[in-house]
């Protein structure tokens, strides 16, 4: 047989977070806990299909007027408008002034990718692949790949996590922004920073915005946890809305995976805020071209569920309630874990567990301690020390707390 053109294709390493889950699945130990992948779990450790989602799916299934026809390239109009409204607020000046645009995307990842592809083609000149893109250190590991694959050649990090004080390195962040070349793109986590769970305070956001405005830096928000972080949609969108009120043009990649629990339906939205209608229209027309060669038009099921929910006052209220249920359980697990660690007298300080927000917590465990947790205690977490609070339940809190205590005291 002739040599294959693929003979030289190397085996790529598996994506870490999914490998973790795969290893967890194969583990036969009854005590095992999965604190890896970022999906919500109930106190029984089960996935949770939101009650409002079940209700709306039933409505959709019973509606014989619906079919499976193609959506428009930019997506379901009712979804797009409502999704952007959720991010920007009902009374957003940008919406009133008709200078926003929306692109329904395949999850938050898809929204990031469309935005990145557009920026590479049209921002800071045409096809300026040299425009620096700044990603927080650390960040969701896929951010880097998205911008690399979109063609950007100069991806940099900005200071974010201060490991020593286990909090935000604001000064480092601001310094990086001062030093960044003008027109650089900054990926900002709108709330519930992944993986650290550490967000700037409103005052700190104001400082960030001031520097970005002065240095002509472009804000590209990643909003994957609106509502899920604090339990309040408005509170979690404060930073994005502040930037809009300060007159910025910006992108906001939204995901409805977590706050609607629609993970596998791939529901996302890229919100574009521009100076005026005309600019936004031209931007959308070019984004349409990008969408057409990536996925042609987006999947309809998830968008229908979200649109139906957001458009109905009653369903919207139910949804907010469901979201608060999830956020509250996470907050409870945070306080329970912290109090156990403090009772055990585990070396170190543990207030960061409750001060951090969202699904994730950067525990501060080092790679050796993480390895101990996995191999000896069958508790699966990322090498960075990131844990998914949703993996904690009233049943496993004690075991996890004791195990962390062991890891910290036995392993340095």
């Amino acid at each position: 047989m002739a040599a294959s053109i693929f003979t030289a294709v190397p085996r790529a390493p598996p994506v870490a977070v999914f490998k973790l889950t795969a290893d967890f699945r194969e583990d036969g130990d009854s005590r095992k806990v999965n604190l890896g992948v970022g999906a919500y779990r109930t106190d029984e450790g089960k996935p949770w299909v939101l009650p409002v989602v079940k209700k709306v799916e039933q409505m959709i299934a019973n509606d014989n007027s619906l079919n499976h026809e193609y959506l428009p390239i930019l997506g379901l109009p009712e979804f797009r408008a409502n999704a952007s409204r959720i991010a920007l607020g009902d009374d957003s000046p940008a919406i009133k002034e008709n200078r926003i645009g929306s692109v329904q995307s395949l999850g938050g990842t898809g929204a990031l990718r469309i935005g990145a592809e557009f920026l590479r083609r049209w921002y800071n000149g045409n096809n300026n692949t040299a425009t620096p893109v700044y990603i927080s250190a650390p960040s969701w590991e896929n951010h880097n790949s998205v911008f690399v694959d979109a063609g950007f050649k100069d991806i940099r990090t900005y200071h974010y996590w201060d490991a020593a004080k286990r909090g935000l390195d604001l000064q480092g962040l601001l310094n990086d922004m001062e030093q960044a070349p003008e027109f650089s793109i900054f990926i900002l986590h709108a709330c519930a920073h992944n993986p650290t769970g550490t967000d700037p305070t409103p005052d700190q956001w104001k400082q960030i915005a001031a520097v970005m405005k002065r240095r002509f830096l472009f804000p590209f928000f990643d909003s994957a946890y609106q509502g899920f972080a604090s339990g309040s949609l408005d509170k979690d969108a404060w930073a994005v809305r502040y930037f809009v009120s300060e007159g910025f043009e910006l992108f906001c990649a939204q995901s409805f995976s977590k706050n609607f629990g629609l993970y596998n339906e791939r529901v996302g939205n890229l919100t574009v805020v521009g100076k005026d209608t005309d600019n936004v229209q031209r931007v959308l027309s070019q984004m349409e071209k990008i969408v057409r060669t990536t996925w042609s038009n987006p999947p309809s099921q998830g968008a229908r569920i979200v649109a139906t929910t957001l458009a109905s006052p009653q369903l919207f209220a139910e949804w907010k309630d469901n979201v608060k249920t999830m956020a509250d359980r996470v907050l409870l697990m945070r306080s329970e874990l912290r109090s156990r660690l403090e009772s055990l007298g585990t070396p170190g300080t543990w207030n960061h567990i409750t001060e951090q927000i969202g699904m994730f917590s950067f525990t501060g465990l080092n790679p050796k301690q993480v390895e101990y947790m996995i191999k000896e205690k069958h508790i699966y977490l990322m090498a960075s020390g990131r844990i998914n609070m949703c993996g904690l339940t009233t049943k496993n809190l004690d075991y996890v707390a004791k195990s962390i205590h062991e890891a910290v005291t036995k392993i340095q």
Partner: protein
Amino acid sequence: SSWWSHVEMGPPDPILGVTEAFKRDTNSKKMNLGVGAYRDDNGKPYVLNCVRKAEAVIASKKMDKEYLPIGGLADFTRASAELALGENSEAFKSGRYVTVQGISGTGSLRIGANFLQRFFKAGRDVYLPKPSWGNHTPIFRDAGMQLQSYRYYDPRTCSLDFSGAMDDIARIPEKSIILLHACAHNPTGVDPRQEQWKELAATVKKRNLLVYFDMAYQGFASGDINRDAWAVRYFIEQGINVLLSQSYAKNMGLYGERAGAFTVICSDAEEAKRVESQLKILIRPMYSNPPLNGARIAATILNTPDLRKEWLVEVKGMADRIISMRTQLVSNLKKEGSSHNWQHITDQIGMFCFTGLKPEQVDRLTKEFSIYMTKDGRISVAGVTSGNVGYLAHAIHQVTK
């Protein structure tokens, strides 16, 4: 001032423009022959019964909404590979293939295009038939490939320019990539006969070309899924390790659910694993993992014997209606007294028909009869019904006599 002041307005999509204009037209006799979606004999979208049944089965299982793996739903990808390759395929049985779920046909093509850009070191050129689906060119271009073409459609006969194609293909530099439409060529409806496919395979093999099949109409073209996949299967049997993109938009009517698959036939299962690992690396920064709904419906149908049987009947039903509309259009044209040879309308296959109408004639059809189609004279036969085929024939005759 804005960051976007210099951003040009993108040119309007020619096909969408047709539908927009159609919507604005108030003529009660208007016909939309631009649409690339199946319509029943009442001109309405058709949700397959097997799809409705599959949806009910799925709903009753009350499954969760957890992320799919990057490569998609395993039940779906395996069933897709089997559907395309055939259950007796050596390539399928030996496991020397990788199939990942893609966002319908477009997404699957794009995964393949990106994969070629990253791993096909021999060259950048992708050869498309002339003409091809309008979106092929920008897909490959955006992936970083270069486009070339080979002769395919003969406008003088409205059929395959076989000698032109063979001539051009024989001259394609070795180790180039050639894209072939597996069946129901879009936009012409002109497919090679089996003997012609055999000659194409021999030439392609001799020139050491990498073959990329686009199969968007399996079952929808002839009504027979095995017949429509014949070329793909023949090439593989000849030792040509192809790339393949599949879509379930038309043959299962799952358009907006975006169900599709991308397959690479490899030397062996080990190579397939390596290729799979790299496909995942490409997919993750595009959209992380694919949407479940459409794939689950398709998998349920393919893997449930009763539903699969029903699907085969329904897809044949759709194909048969299209074929019957072709026949009726030709007989109506004869009845109108047209002296032209309209045989190509029944020779061609699939959703689309290259009528041979010139732009000026297309213009007249639109302006005088409110019949909408793309400027190249392509009609979507799916938009023709027993209720309007007479009107269509009359109009075509008026502008061509």
